[in-house]
Structure formats: C-alpha cells, structure tokens
C-alpha cells in the first residue's frame, strides 16, 4: 500500500483522462438529494456530499436486470431456449463512495459468491468495478459504522481511499486495480513521509465524531429461537411498521430479489428485480398459505436476518455497515440501533432487554 497526494487542481484533469478506459460513476445532486449517477463528460462528482439517499449498490446489482433471454419465434432453431443476454461489462469506477457503502459489497458478496453457486451477473459487475472511496469527516447523527464493523476511514473493499486534506486529497492506493486507476489518471505526487500518520490522526478525530452505536457482542451467543420468540421486542416494534419496504430498498446490504418473466413481441425475458421481505407476496405460497403472513413475521425476518441469522451463518459480524439510511428514511421511526441493542441484551428468563435512547 502506498499513499500519494492528489492536488485538487489536478483532480478534474485526472478524471478526464480516466474517461478513456472507465465509465465514471459518482455522487451528484438531483433536485434535493444526492444520488450516484454515470457522469457524462463535463460532469464531476460532488465530493462535498454527506451521503446519497439511495445506495450505490445498483452499480453492481441493478434494481431490475435481464438475466436470461430467449426467442419466442417458432421458426427459430433456438425457440424457447433461454440464453444469457449479450451484455458488456465495461470497466467502471465508483468515485467518492463512502466506507459504509463500499464495505457493504463484502457483506453482499457472501450471498452471491458461494462455494456451491456463483451469481455470474453480480460477480462480473463487481470484478470490472474499481472503488475510489472517500473518508468521512462529518458523519450524520444516524451513523453508527464504527460499531457495525466499518468506520469513517475504513478501507475495506476499496481500491483507493481518498482523505480530504484541504487543497489536496491524500490517497491510499490499496490494490492493483487502484494502482492501475491512479496511473491512468496520472496522479503520482509524493505525499510526504508523514502521510500515513496524518491519515491516522484524521481517522481518530473522525471516529470520535461518531456519536451513536450498536452493541453486538452478545448476538452470536444468544439462542436463535429465544430471540425469534422475543415477543416483547417484536410486538412493540411491529405495531407501528407499515411494511412499506423503504428500509430494504435504501439498505446497501439488502440483497433479496424476485424473478419475473416478460414477453416483448417475439422475445421472452427473465428479469431479476429487487424484492423485499416486508411484502406478503414475498413468501406467499401458490396454494394460499403464507409462512410469514403477518407484519410482525415480516419485520422480525428483516432484523433476525441482519442481526442473528447472518451472524450465525457467516460468523463475520452483522449484515449491516451502519450507514443509518433505514433510520433516516423510516416513516414510523423504527430504529435498527434500538432493536439491535434489545436483541443483544435480551434475557428470556425475565423477558427484558435494555432499551437505549437512540
């Protein structure tokens, strides 16, 4: 790993050079909110943003994606035989992604890249993407990354981490992909011998600004069935939930999907779409039975998945990187920090758990 200095006056020129070999994606303000967009020539990422409303997960995992295609023309020799659609995976770079969002791809990868099956669409998109992250110096009040396995200067799953240092960025070049990118951009200024120390100091300051946290140390040790049956938690939390699914759509680590077939003229398409465990149709059997038929079942599924099933299955912490979007966006103030702390401290003997202000 090396640290280089990127003078902000060299930033635009570097981005323009990158356009030759990469599609550029970065945060831009659309009406009121920031969102990640492909940057057309002349458009730059807004590096002064806090975070986007919708996560950049769509770059690797589009909200709707054709996964198979077939001819429905009886005269074709491959009539009704599904094939992969022609799709080019152009090299792209995600600029200015925040550490929580970058780290979310390591979480989601555990679902799509397994010993038994590999999702070719997710993996091809992931492998052709370079992540140039941006460390956070001004976290939101809902950020709790430091206790969710990430942090404002966390460089997990990044190829380059940029640290804003006034008139320049200090850039940690972390991988070969990162090396190729900075060299393609022509960024190579010496950052000075004490660059690593300066980053470390800024990191400590940034971490001290994260004011909220979750307690997770007991989650693995709790009994799965005790937590599942902890009605003191689920009844209270589900009371207000309207199953709108916003939390799942804004979450960088929610990966569930639906598959639907569509016919356009003489072509059949199999399409994968983001889905949500908040919806009754997610689990409804054709014969009418629904194993998660109540909103309590569905709310419980979301939090048990993130904070217990995932924890037990992968032994790599919680399925959450602490971005806080679900807290900011929930219309009824359901707060994953509160639920996590209740699950962490739940005692089935007394049916109590610690309810902390959040």
């Amino acid at each position: 790993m090396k640290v280089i200095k990127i003078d902000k006056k060299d930033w635009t020129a570097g981005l323009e050079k990158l356009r030759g070999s990469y599609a550029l994606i970065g945060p831009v303000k659309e009406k009121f909110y920031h969102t990640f967009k492909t940057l057309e020539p002349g458009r730059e990422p807004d590096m002064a943003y806090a975070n986007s409303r919708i996560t950049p997960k769509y770059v690797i995992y589009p909200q709707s994606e054709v996964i198979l295609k077939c001819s429905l023309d009886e005269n074709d020799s491959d009539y009704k035989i599904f094939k992969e659609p022609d799709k080019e995976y152009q090299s792209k770079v995600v600029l200015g992604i925040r550490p929580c969002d970058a780290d979310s791809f390591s979480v989601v990868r555990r679902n799509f890249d397994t010993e038994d099956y590999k999702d070719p669409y997710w993996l091809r998109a992931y492998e052709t993407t370079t992540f140039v992250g941006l460390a956070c110096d001004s976290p939101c009040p809902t950020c709790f990354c430091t206790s969710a396995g990430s942090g404002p200067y966390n460089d997990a799953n990044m190829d380059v981490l940029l640290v804003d240092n006034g008139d320049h960025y200090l850039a940690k070049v972390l991988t070969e992909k990162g090396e190729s990118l900075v060299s393609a951009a022509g960024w190579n200024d010496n950052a000075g011998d004490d660059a690593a120390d300066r980053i470390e100091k800024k990191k400590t300051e940034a971490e001290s600004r994260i004011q909220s946290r979750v307690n997770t140390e007991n989650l693995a040790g709790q009994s799965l069935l005790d937590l599942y049956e902890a009605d003191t938690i689920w009844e209270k939390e589900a009371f207000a939930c309207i199953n709108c699914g916003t939390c799942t759509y804004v979450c960088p680590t929610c990966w569930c999907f639906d598959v639907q077939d569509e016919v356009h003229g003489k072509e059949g398409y199999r399409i994968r779409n983001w889905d949500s465990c908040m919806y009754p149709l997610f689990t409804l059997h054709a014969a009418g039975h629904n194993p998660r038929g109540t909103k309590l079942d569905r709310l419980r599924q979301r939090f048990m998945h993130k904070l217990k099933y995932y924890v037990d299955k992968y032994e790599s912490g919680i399925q959450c990187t602490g971005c806080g979007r679900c807290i900011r966006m929930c219309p009824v103030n359901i707060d994953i920090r509160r639920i996590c702390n209740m699950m962490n401290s739940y005692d089935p003997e007394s049916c109590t758990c610690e309810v902390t202000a959040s």
Partner: protein
Amino acid sequence: MENPYIPYPVRIDEIKTETEDKSLKTFKFVFLNPEDEEKFAYRAGQFAELSIPGLGEIPIGIASSPTEKGFVKFTVFKTGKVTSYLHSMKEGDIMGIRGPLGNWYPWETLEGKNVVIIGGGFAFTTLRSSIIYMLDPDNRKKFKDIHVIYGARSPGMLLYKEELENWAARDDLNMHITVDSTNDPEWPHHTGFVPTISEQEAPSGTDDTYAIVCGPPVMIKFTQPVLDKLGYSEDRIIMSLENRMKCGIGMCGRCNIGKEFVCKDGPVFTLQQLNHTPKEY
C-alpha cells in the same frame, strides 16, 4: 463460470393425467441435448425448477428415480399461473428444467436400516422416486424392511395407481394403501386417515428404523404424535419441506426458516433439525 440460472432445454415426451379430478398430471421430459441428462445427475428427494419461457419457474420435486434412465418425471398440481399453463401444454412442447436442486433423503444413513415411508395426497412424488430407487435390484439388498403407507382422499385421487398395485403384490415391500373414504364395496385396501393406518401398520421405532414423512400439514400434525408413541426419536423422522422459491440456489432470500434455506440446505430435514428452527413453513 457456470451460470446457475440457465435451464436445460427439454421436450415434453408424455403427459399422464393422474387423478379423477384432473388436477394432477405427470410430465415426462426428455433432454434436448443428451449430455444435459448426465449433468442433471440427481438423488431421490431433490427438486428442480420447471421453466416455461414467458411465464416463469416453479420448484417441483423430482418424481422419477435416478435408476430410471432416458427421462425425468414430475407430477404437478394445477394451482397457480405457471402450473395452470403447464397443464395446458402438449406432448412435443419445448420448455426448460433447472437443477437438480437441494439436498436428498439421507441414503447413506438409511443403508442397512428399516425404512418407513409415510405419504399423503400429492406429496408422494419424491417418495415414488425413493421407492423405485430402493426397489432397484442393485439397491434393494442395501435396506432391511421397507414399509410404505400412502393415503389419498379417495381411490381416484391416488397417484401412480398401477405402480401402487404392483408394489402391493411384492413380497419385499409392505405396502399399505388407504383412502379417507370410498363407496366401492370391493375396495381391497385400507379405509382411514394416514395417521390411523400408521398407528396400526408402521413398525415400532428402533435405532435401526427411520421414517420419511411427506404430506399436507394436517397429516404431518397428526402423524407426528403417532410416531412419538411408536418410539421414533426426532432424528429418525425425516421430512421434506416446501416454501415459495425463486432462485433455488440460496440467493433470493425468501424460503428461509431461520438461517437455513429450504432450497439449498433442505428441502429434506430431520424433525430434530426442524425443532431448532423457526416454524416458518
């Protein structure tokens, strides 16, 4: 990278209506590319996604046995969008099969043991696969006593009627066929619900005896206490679950019971395993 979403193309070779109400049909499929049949090597108890372009996919247990070569069979109940369309398809039509998916009945564990198969209604498909597999001349000697208890609402609702009669005539298989009720005074088999017949006919539970139970929830609910009474321990009661599925490979997130996916970690679980998961099935 192998794409796990691409189905093997197949042709419908034969369609047989199984039940008097015509709600169940057995589809015999032949692979368009012979090498795909080898890739589709399966064990009794597994399932596959039947794929109809333009409609979608449905997860269905494999009714043929790995010992039957040259085709695969699935018995499908007409209930939703894809199954209704499938019931209107004709012999010769092209569609797809994706799999085999999921785990299978624990055949290695069952070797050298008594096996009791208890089935009800149309959940008998992977049980047919299992019976054909065990009765194969190369396999029969691997198992001790085999009992099969199978029930349906009426004689006309039983699946695989010819095969049932053939099995009933054999002396290396104890076949107990039952119906809830019938007007036929000549009905040669049992009358009564599956749990009742199980109580009368199933052997007692021993360390060497395993029960495979597949059927509608109400049958399972009342069969379980019978097996308890007969002395079956919860690790010797084997069940196969169904949940709504899409991907079939443990990725789309809907069929889980706790941290297990019915599609990938199941569909076969022991009662002991199920007692440690949320009952979301």
